[in-house]
C-alpha cells in the first residue's frame, strides 16, 4: 500500500486543480526531472517526503485525467491543515501518522489505485 503515491501528492496539486494546471505541472516536472533538478526528485506528502521520477509523474498525470480515478484519489487527500508540519522526516516514522486513514484503507481496492 502506498498512500503517499496519491497523484495529487506526486504533482503537488490540490484536488481542485484544473485539467490545464495538471498538464502544466506535469510538463514542468518532466522537464525539471530531465534536467536533473534536485527539487523535482522528491515531493512532500502527509506521509513524508517521497522520491519522484518521470514514470511516477506520467502515471499521476494519467490517473488525474480519468474522472473516476480522480474522484477516488481526491477522497484520499486530507485537508492541508491536517498535514503534519514536518513532512520531510524519515518515511518509516512518517508512516505512523494518520493512523485512522491508513487503517481504513489497508488492503482495500482504493489502496491499489495509488
Amino acid at each position, binding site marked *: 500500500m502506498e498512500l503517499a503515491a496519491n497523484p495529487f501528492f506526486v504533482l503537488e496539486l490540490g484536488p481542485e486543480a484544473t485539467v490545464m494546471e495538471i498538464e502544466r505541472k506535469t510538463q514542468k516536472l518532466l522537464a525539471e526531472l530531465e534536467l536533473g533538478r534536485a*527539487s523535482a526528485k522528491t515531493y512532500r506528502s502527509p506521509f513524508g517526503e517521497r522520491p519522484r521520477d518521470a514514470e511516477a509523474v506520467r502515471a499521476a498525470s494519467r490517473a488525474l*485525467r480519468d474522472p473516476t480515478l480522480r474522484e477516488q484519489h481526491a477522497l484520499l487527500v486530507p485537508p492541508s491543515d491536517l498535514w503534519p508540519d514536518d513532512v520531510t522526516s524519515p518515511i518509516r516514522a512518517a508512516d505512523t501518522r494518520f493512523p485512522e486513514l491508513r487503517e481504513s484503507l489497508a488492503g482495500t481496492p482504493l489502496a491499489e489505485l495509488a
Partner: protein
Amino acid sequence: MTRRWTLGIDLGTTNSTAVVFDGETLEPVRTANGSSLLPSVVRVTRPGQIVVGEKARRFLEKDPQNTRGGFKRLLGTSSKFEFPAAGESLTPERLSTEVLKTLLAHAAETRPASTAAVVTVPALFELPQTEATARAAKAAGIERLELLQEPVASALAAGFRGDGGGSWLVYDLGGGTFDASLVVGEEGLLSVVGHDGDNFLGGRDFDAVMARIIAEACFAPAGVRVDPKDPAHQRAWRSLMAIAEEAKIELSRNERVQVTSSDPLEIDGKQFDVDVMIERSELEAQLEPLIQRSIDLCQRLLETHGRNSLDRVVLVGGPTAMPLVRSRVAQALGSIAAESLDPMTLVAQGAALYAAQRGLWCGEEAHVSLAKPEARRLSLRAPVVSTDVMPYVVGTVLELDRKPSIARVRLVRDRGGWEGAWEPVDSEGGFTLSAELEPRRGNVFRVEAQGATSAPIPVEPAQLSILQGVTIGDPPVSRSIGVAMADGRVHIYLEKGHPLPAKRTFTHRTVETLVPGNGGGLRIPLVQGEYDDARFCRLIGTLNIEADRLKAVLPVASTLEVTLELDRGGRMVARAEVPGQKLVFEQIASLVVPEADPSVLEAECVRLLERFAKLDATLDEEDTKLMERLSREHLDLEALVDRAIGGDAEAGQRARRSALDLEAKLTELEARSEWPERVDDVMMTALSDQHWVEQHGSAAEKKMFQTAMDGLGKAVQRRSLRDLERHRRTTRRLGQTSFLRDNDAYVLIFESIASRVSEAHDLKTAESLVKQGRKLVENGERIKLIGVVEQLSELLPASAKKRKESYSSGLY
C-alpha cells in the same frame, strides 16, 4: 538557417498519403502526377523491378497476377503474395515497405531525405499488425518512428486550429471498413474515449451497389447475371467494379453520369458493351440502407458513452465526399466540422502534427543561432506543441563555473512585443520561465540573460519556438491486453483506453512442475480483447518458459512475475521473471495473426448458425432486433468464408476476426436469454457483499460500493451484460475485502477449500496443510490460518477444459 519539418504518413488500404508540416503550414506530398494520393498498389514484373502507385494501379485489372493491392489488411500474417512474372513472393510487410519508400522518395523531391515520421494505423489493429507496420516503416528508412491511431490523427488535424473542446465524432468511411471514434476535448487536450466499427462496410460496398445497377441496366435485358462468387465471372466483375468506382466518384460532383467501358466485358462467352446513363438519385436510393448502418453504429457508440449530442463530426475517407453521406450524417449526428477539411489527407495531417508534438523533426534545428564564442550554453526544455498558452520553460546553465555568471534569464516573444519577467538562476544553475503564447500559431522567443550587474550575456541557444494548438493526450490502448490464466479467464494487464506508454507487472503461480533436461515448458498466452473468457480474446503471442533454460526444478505453484510494456505506438515487450532463479524470459513466440484455415472457418460458420437457431425461440422483442443484426453479420461472414475458400487470404483474415466477434456477441446474447436469472444471481451476491461492506467497510469504500450499485442498476435497465459484469467485479472486490476483515472469514474460506483437498496437485502437502489449518482454527490462530489458506488454494488445479480454452496457459 535550414528549415525543419515533420512528416506524417497515412498508410492506407486503397491509397496512402504523406503530409509535411514546417511548424506553420501543412503541405501534402505530391506524386509525379501532382496527386496527393498514392495508390497502395505494387507491381513486380521482373526481379527487383518494383512499380508503386498510379502506374501500378492501371494494371490491377489487366494483370492482377503481378499487381497487388489491399495488402495492408494482411499485415502481421504469414501470407505471401506471388508475382509469377518476376518469380518472387513478397510479404504484405515488404509490399508496405515499398509504398512507404515511394512516399519518402516523393517527399525527398522538395527537401532532404526524411528519416523521422509518424505512421498511422487503424484503431482496431491487433498488436502483430502494429508490429508489422513498424517493421515496414523501419525497413523503408524511417529511423525515428512513432505510430498513431488513425482516428486520433484525424481528430488532431481537424481540431488543431480550433478550440478543440466538446464531444467529437470521427466518421471514417474507408475503402473496406467503417470506423467511428468518439473524441472528447477539454482545455485543448483531446482524448479518444471510445470506438466502434464495421468490418463489412466501406467504399467497396458502395462500388458493388453501383456495379449491380450498371449490370442490371446493361446485362439483365439480355437475361445475363454477373455473379461475383462465380470464378468464370470474376474478371468481368473486377472490370465492372473499376467502372463503378469511377462513376460513383463522378456522381459526387454531378447529378448524372454516362457510364461506358473502353473494352467490352465477356460474360458466359458473350461480349457486352457498357453504355448507360445513371442518375445520382438512383444510386442514392440504393445506398441509403448502407449509410443508415453506419449511422446506427455511431448512435450506438454515443449511447454506450452516455452522449446525447455532438459538437462536431469529422469526416474521413473518400466515400465521405458523397453528398448523400454528408447530408445524412449532418442530419442524424450533428454539424460537420469545417467543410474545407480534406478527408483524404486529414489522417496524414494529424500524423505530421503529432510528429511535431513528439519532437520528431527532420532537417536541421531551425533556430540554432550562429553562436558567438563568448555565448554561454544553456540546456532548455520547452514543449514543441502546447495546448497551454502559458507553458513553463525549464532550463539549466551549463559550465556553471564560467565567468561572468548568469544571474537571471527571461524570454521575449518575437511577435507582439511580449516580455517575460526576469527569473533568477539558482545555485545549481537552474531556472524556470513562463512563456506567453499567441494562440494557434508558432511562437518564437528570444532567450536573454544578464549578469549580477545587469550586463547582457549572450546565450546559446538564443531562440526557441513553441507551437500553440490542440494536442492529444497519451494515445490509448485500442483493445484490452492481458494474460490468459489456466482457469480460462483473462488477467487484464492494460484495459482498453489506458494511456500509452504503459507498463504493468503482476505475479502469478505456475500450474505444473518444470524440470530442466526434461524438455517441454510452460506457456504464457498473451491475449487481446474485451472479454473475461480467454477463448473469446485473440491470442497475439506466447511467452514460453522453456524447462531446459531453468537453473533448477521449478515446482508447481512457483511464483512468476510477468511484465507487459507497451510504447506509444502500441508495440509490446513481454517479460517473465523467475524470481527464485534470477532468470528472465523475453522472447515472444508467434507474434503473428493466426492462420485463417477456410475449412475451419466454414465449420465455425455452421456451428454459429446452429447456435442462432437454438437461440431464436427464446428472445424478447429488443433482443430480436439485436439478433437480426447478428444474423446479417452472419450472412456477411458466410460471404467472406466463400471468398476465403476461393483463395482470398484477406477475406479469410476478415472472416477469422468476424467469427470471433460474432461468437462473443452470440455468447452475450445467449447470456441475455437467461437475463432474469443472471440479474437475480448478481443482485443476490451484491446484497451479500453490501452486508459485509456495511459491517466492515470504510467510508470511502461504502461510497464506492454505492456508486457500483448504481451502475448495476443502470446495467440492468440497459440490459448490458458487459456493464453488469464490470460493476459486479467492483462490488465483489469491495465485498470480499470487507468480508476478509471479519473474524471468521478465513475459517469459512479454509473449510471451503479443505473440502476440495482431494483435487490438489500435491495431495500429501495439501493434507498436511489441512491438518495444520484445523489445529490453527481450534487454537483461534487466525493470522497463521491466512498463510495456510493461501498455500492450499495454490495447490488446487484448473480443469483441463478450462486450460484448453485458455490457450493452454500454465499460470493462475
